[in-house]
């Protein structure tokens, strides 16, 4: 569920000129950059990275993931390795979810908060071995995250019992997402398990399971049954020099299954349909997981951790703002981040702001998420989204916004 980049990296430019040129310089590139160019990817700036927003079209790639499979470059995301006898205790101080629940070969969604409960980042924590953990963090947050982790470790009495290493630059990663993925993942990446979950084949991985995988000449991979689209699928982490081989093999094995490359545009519409947060939109350092509706991932019962006191107070006493999902009523322009949210029919002032918004390719209507007072957060509450000075009706809906029809 951990997203891509975020802060200051909006994909949308409301009211911009047609085809306004976006400056593209001083940007970081993933090891798949040349592959994106060859595949005709349209490159944009995203969280300091030059990334493909789309190859064919966002709608086309989105529907491919919902119907078959799509392959995303997520090499921009960061990886931090923690290992040693004291790693678990440190992680449980640093993060909101309870890392004690992780068996070897399991992963969990979790958050890293400041002492006020504000979100420094949302991330995935994997337990690869008895004393070995891997954190997958957002691209735009690598620097603040690592600085925060290192400062916390420096002040940690038991710091000699663990090591922390930012390995983001040495690794590449892709996400294969869609119901067809399981049918060809083993054909794409033949190999054998060397650690993590006790499975013999990749198609035996269950949700949130992870393995270390010896893929022969591609080297040692980490493969998890996770993603950011709401579909079945796998995330594959590889040494940077191997990631293009991983990319090429998955596309080749997936071709008969209608698997195609997919860009950040589809990644964003897919996660928005699921109501998943993206750092810099739903989450920032002034917003808590409780306000964001992520209280499920805050394990108050595990004992002390950074941010616990304010988060416990919010869980008991309630919050002043709450993240809701909404759906536009009828045919309207798509809602966009920063559009004002109004209470239906109330004239005084906006009650909040859209933080994520798009046309939903699956539902063919406008959808989004935004922050409103808790009194306006119940499912079914009518809201209005202000689009270029006019207010359009919307309804608070349950997450996920899109539910696949039974098949």
């Amino acid at each position: 569920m951990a997203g891509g980049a975020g802060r200051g990296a909006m994909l949308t430019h409301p009211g911009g000129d047609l085809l306004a040129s976006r400056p593209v310089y001083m940007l970081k590139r993933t090891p798949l950059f040349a592959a994106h160019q060859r595949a005709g990817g349209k490159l944009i700036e995203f969280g300091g990275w030059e990334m493909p927003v789309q190859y064919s079209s966002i709608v086309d790639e989105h529907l491919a993931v919902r119907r078959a499979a799509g392959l995303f470059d997520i090499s921009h995301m960061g990886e931090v390795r923690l290992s040693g006898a004291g790693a678990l205790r440190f992680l449980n101080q640093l993060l909101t979810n309870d890392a004690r629940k992780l068996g070897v070969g399991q992963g969990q969604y979790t958050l890293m908060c400041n002492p006020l409960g504000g979100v420094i980042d949302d991330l995935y924590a994997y337990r690869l071995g008895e004393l070995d953990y891997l954190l997958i963090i957002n691209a735009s947050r690598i620097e603040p995250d690592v600085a925060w982790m290192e400062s916390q470790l420096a002040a940690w009495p038991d710091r000699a019992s663990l090591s922390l290493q930012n390995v983001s630059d040495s690794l590449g990663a892709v996400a294969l997402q869609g119901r067809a993925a399981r049918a060809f993942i083993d054909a794409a990446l033949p190999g054998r398990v060397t650690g993590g979950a006790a499975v013999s084949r990749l198609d035996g991985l269950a949700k949130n399971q992870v393995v270390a995988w010896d893929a022969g000449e591609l080297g040692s991979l980490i493969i998890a049954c996770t993603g950011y689209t709401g579909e079945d699928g796998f995330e594959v982490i590889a040494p940077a020099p191997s990631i293009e081989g991983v990319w090429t093999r998955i596309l080749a094995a997936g071709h008969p299954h209608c698997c195609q490359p997919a860009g950040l545009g589809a990644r964003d519409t897919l996660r928005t349909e699921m109501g998943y947060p993206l750092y810099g939109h739903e989450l920032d350092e002034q917003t808590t997981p409780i306000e964001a509706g992520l209280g499920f991932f805050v394990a108050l019962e595990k004992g002390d951790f950074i941010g616990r006191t304010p988060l416990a107070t919010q869980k008991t006493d309630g919050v002043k703002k709450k993240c809701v999902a909404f759906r536009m009523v009828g045919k309207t322009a798509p809602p966009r981040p920063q559009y004002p949210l109004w209470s239906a029919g109330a004239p005084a002032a906006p009650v909040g702001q859209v933080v994520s918004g798009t046309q939903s390719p699956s539902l063919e209507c406008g959808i989004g998420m935004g922050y409103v007072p808790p009194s306006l957060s119940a499912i079914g509450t009518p809201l209005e989204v202000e689009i270029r000075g006019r207010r359009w009706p919307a309804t608070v809906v349950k997450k996920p916004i899109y539910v696949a029809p039974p098949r």
Partner: protein
Amino acid sequence: MSSKVPSELKYAKSHEWVRIDGDIATVGITDHAQHELTDVVFVELPAVGRKLAAGEACAVVESVKTASDIYSPAAGEVTAVNDKVSGSPNLVNDQPYGDGWFYKLRLSNPAEVQQLLTAADYSKSIGG
């Protein structure tokens, strides 16, 4: 990429095209523009009767990810808008020079459109 740039039309640098018929101009966005936008999902058109200055933002075209302003390539009064394109915004992608037109304008100064780009100049401006 080879975008279609019909030779009988005039063009604005901001990717609108104009078809002149006497003092009436039909306005839309170019094949290059629709190709770059992809997946047009919403079009907002000016009101009939609205008087537009040349270069005035008067319509909005939205793709899945982007909202973009459309600038009137010439001054005049809006005489008709394409309701079909509001109902089926994908017409902008499918037929940018046909059923995907945006609005018609009675030109205040028909000579003004001679200052717009020719097909050859517009092709050059998009690297064609």
